[in-house]
C-alpha cells in the first residue's frame, strides 16, 4: 500500500515538475519539430481540408507561414481541427501552439481568457444569408422579424445576433448548433430561414449548399469581426514571432516580394528589400526575434505574400471571389498596415 501511495505521489510530483519546467513556446515548438496549429473544422477559404486531405485556406496558410519562420520549412505543421467551443481551452491548455481559426479579436478574449491576439489577418463583419427563392421580397435584415435563425454556439456571432434583433425591436427564434457542419445541414434542410455568421463565411458556406444560387447574402453588416491568430498570454517572445510573421507577409506584398521572385530579389540593391530579406550585412533582425535572418525569405517561399495568400484562398483565384475591400493594403485604401521592419 505504501509503495502505491508513494508511487502516486511521485508521479504527481513529476507531472508538476514537467509543467513547471516548460520553457517558452518557441523552444517547445523547436524541440517538438513541428508547430501544432488550431484551425476550424472546415470553413472554405479559411481552413478546410481539400480533396487530398491537405488543409487549405488563409488561416491554414498562416500556420504554414509561422512554421516557415521557425523552421524554414512551411510543411512542419500539424493541424488540430477545433469547434468554436473547444478552441480557447485547446490554446490555454497548451494542446496547440497557435490558434489560427477565424477568431474574432475582442477585449474579453484578450484579457479574461488569457489570450493575446497577434494581429488582424482578415477584417470581417457579420451578415445574414437567406434563401431568396423561398423568401421572395426579403432584401433587408430589418425584414427578418419572426424568423428562425441558424447560428453556431460559442461565437461572437451569437451575441451580435441577440444585440441586433433587440436593438431593432425584432423577434427571432435562435436555432443553435455546436459544429459548423450541423448549422449548414440544418439551414440547408430548411430548419431555419436565416443563416448568420461572418460575411466571408457566408460566401464560403453558400458554395457548399445544395443549390447555392438560390441563396443571397443580405447587404447589412451588423458588427465588426476582426479575425486574427491568437497565442497564450504571457509569452511575449512567441507573440512577437507570430505578430511579425503577419507583418512580414504584409511588408512582402508592399515591397512586391512574391513567391516567384523572392530568390531573385535576394540580390536586390534596394536597402529596404535587403533589410527585410535579411541580406543586409550584419543584420540582427531575425536573430533578435529568435529566428534565422532569412525568416522572411522562408515565409514568402512557403506561402507567398499576404496578397497572394488572399487571392489564392478567398479572392479572385478562389471560388469565393471576395474583393480585397478593407483587407487591401493601406496604400490602396484598405486597413492592412504593417509597422516597418527595421
Amino acid at each position, binding site marked *: 500500500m505504501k509503495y502505491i501511495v508513494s508511487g502516486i505521489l511521485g508521479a504527481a510530483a513529476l507531472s508538476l515538475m514537467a509543467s513547471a519546467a516548460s520553457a517558452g513556446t518557441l523552444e517547445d515548438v523547436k524541440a517538438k519539430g513541428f508547430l501544432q496549429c488550431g484551425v476550424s473544422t472546415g470553413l472554405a477559404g479559411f481552413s478546410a481540408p481539400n480533396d487530398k486531405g491537405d488543409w487549405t485556406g488563409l488561416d491554414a496558410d498562416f500556420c504554414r507561414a509561422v512554421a516557415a519562420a521557425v523552421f524554414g520549412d512551411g510543411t512542419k505543421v500539424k493541424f488540430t481541427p477545433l469547434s468554436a467551443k473547444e478552441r480557447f481551452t485547446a490554446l490555454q491548455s497548451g494542446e496547440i501552439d497557435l490558434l489560427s481559426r477565424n477568431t474574432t479579436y475582442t477585449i474579453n478574449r484578450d484579457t479574461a481568457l488569457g489570450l493575446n491576439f497577434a494581429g488582424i489577418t482578415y477584417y470581417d463583419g457579420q451578415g445574414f444569408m437567406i434563401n431568396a427563392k423561398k423568401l421572395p421580397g426579403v432584401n433587408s435584415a430589418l425584414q427578418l422579424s419572426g424568423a428562425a435563425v441558424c447560428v453556431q454556439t460559442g461565437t461572437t456571432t451569437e451575441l451580435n445576433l441577440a444585440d441586433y434583433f433587440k436593438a431593432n425591436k425584432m423577434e427571432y*427564434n435562435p436555432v443553435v448548433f455546436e459544429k459548423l457542419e450541423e448549422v449548414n445541414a440544418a439551414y440547408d434542410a430548411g430548419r431555419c430561414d436565416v443563416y448568420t455568421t461572418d460575411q466571408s463565411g457566408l460566401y464560403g458556406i453558400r458554395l457548399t449548399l445544395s443549390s447555392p444560387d438560390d441563396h443571397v447574402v443580405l447587404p447589412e453588416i451588423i458588427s465588426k469581426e476582426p479575425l486574427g491568430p491568437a497565442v497564450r498570454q504571457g509569452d511575449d517572445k512567441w507573440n512577437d514571432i507570430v505578430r511579425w510573421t503577419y507583418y512580414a507577409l504584409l511588408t512582402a506584398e508592399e515591397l512586391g516580394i512574391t513567391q516567384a521572385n523572392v530568390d531573385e530579389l535576394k540580390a536586390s540593391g534596394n536597402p529596404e528589400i535587403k533589410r527585410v530579406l535579411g541580406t543586409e550585412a550584419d543584420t540582427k533582425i531575425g536573430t533578435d526575434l529568435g529566428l534565422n535572418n532569412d525568416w522572411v525569405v522562408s515565409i514568402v517561399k512557403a506561402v507567398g505574400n499576404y496578397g497572394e495568400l488572399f487571392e489564392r484562398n478567398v479572392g479572385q483565384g478562389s471560388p469565393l471571389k471576395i474583393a480585397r475591400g478593407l483587407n487591401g493594403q493601406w496604400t490602396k485604401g484598405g486597413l492592412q498596415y504593417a509597422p516597418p521592419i527595421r
Partner: protein
Amino acid sequence: MATQDIPRDVGGGRASLLYDPKVRGIFVQALVVVALGVLVYWIVGNTAENLKRANVASGFGFLNGRAGFDLSDTPIQFDSDSTYRRALLAGFLNTVIVALAGIVTATIIGFLLGVGRLANNWLIRKICTVYVEVFRNIPPLLVIFFWYFGVLSVLPLPKESIELPFGSFLNSRGIYLPRPVWDEGASLILVALAIGIAMSVFVARRAKQRQMATGQPFPVLWVSIALIVGLPLLALAATGFPLTFDLPKKSTFNLTGGFQIKPEFLALYLALSFYTASFIAEIVRAGIKGVSRGQSEAAAALGLRSGQTLRLVVVPQALRIVIPPLTSQYLNLTKNSSLAIAIGYPDLVAVGGTVLNQTGQAIEIVTIWMVVYLGLSLITSAFMNWFNAKMALVER
C-alpha cells in the same frame, strides 16, 4: 521478535500494537486518506497556480454577468439580458423536462413491449422482439440523428404545413398546438379538478375497505374517471366556458401563436424514449419470467381471471425484480440526454458549453455539470430505492 510466540487471542490487548489487525487497518486507512487529501490539495493548488500564471480569471463570479445570447427553447423567461446563472438554470430545467418526459414514455413503451414479447400471439411477439433487438443495438446518438434528420427534418416547410385536427400543424419546425387561454373564473376548474382527485382517492379507500369486509367489488376506475373528468367539465359549463384557444397562424416566416414543440426536443425525447424502452422491455420480460409458473397456476386455481392474475399476482412480484435494474435505465436516460448537444437542444450541457465559451470558465462549468448530473442521479436513485423498499416483499 519476541512477541511472535504469543498467540493472538490470548491476554486481551497485550500483544504488540504492530500486530493488531484493527490498529493496522486503521493506520493504513488513515494513511490512504491523508495521501488522497494531499493529492487533491496538490492538484487544486497546481491548477489554481497555473490558471493564475495563464492570466485566466477563475471563480464563480461570472455567473452574475449578462448572458448576451438567446436560447431557442426555454421553460422560464430568458432573453439576452438575463444572467449566465439563469441560462444554466434554463438548461438544467430543459434537461429535467426531457429526462422526465423520456422516463415516463420509455417506461410505458417498455412495459408494453416487455409484455408483448411474452404474448401468445406470434406476430406481436416477433414484432416486439425485432423492435428490442434493433433499438438496443444502435448507439443512442444515431437514434437521435434518425429522428432529427431522418424523420423530422424531411417534414414540409412552414408554408406547406400539414394540418392536423383541432387547429394543430406539423412542419419541419415542430408541432404547433392551440394554446389554451384562461379567462376569469378559470380557477374554479382547477378547484373542481382537485376535488375530483380527492374524492376518487376517498372512494378508492372505501371500496377497498368494503371489499375486504364484504367481498363485494366496486367499479373504482369508472367512478374515478367520472369524478376527475366530470367535475371540471361541470365547472367549465357553470362558469360559462371561460376558455379560448390561441391558434397557430401562418406569418411571413413561421407559424406564430399557439404552443410550439420544437423538433430538437421531439427528436431527443422520442429517441431517448424509444432507445431506453428496448432495455426496459428486456427488464420487464425478465421480471415476469422470474415469477414462478406455480404462482399463476395457483391464482388460476383460485378462480382469478387471466387479467386479474397478471395484475394482482404476477406484476407485483415481477416489480420486485424489475425495479433495481430499472433505476439504472432511468439514470442512463438522464445522462444520455446530454447527447442533446448534437442536435442543438439547449440542455444543461449545450447551454453550459455556450457559457463556457463566452466566459472561458472551463473548470467552473465542468464542475457545475458534474455536480448537477451527480445530484440528478442521486435523487433518482434515492426515489427508486424508496419505491423499491415500498414494493419489497413484506414478510410476516
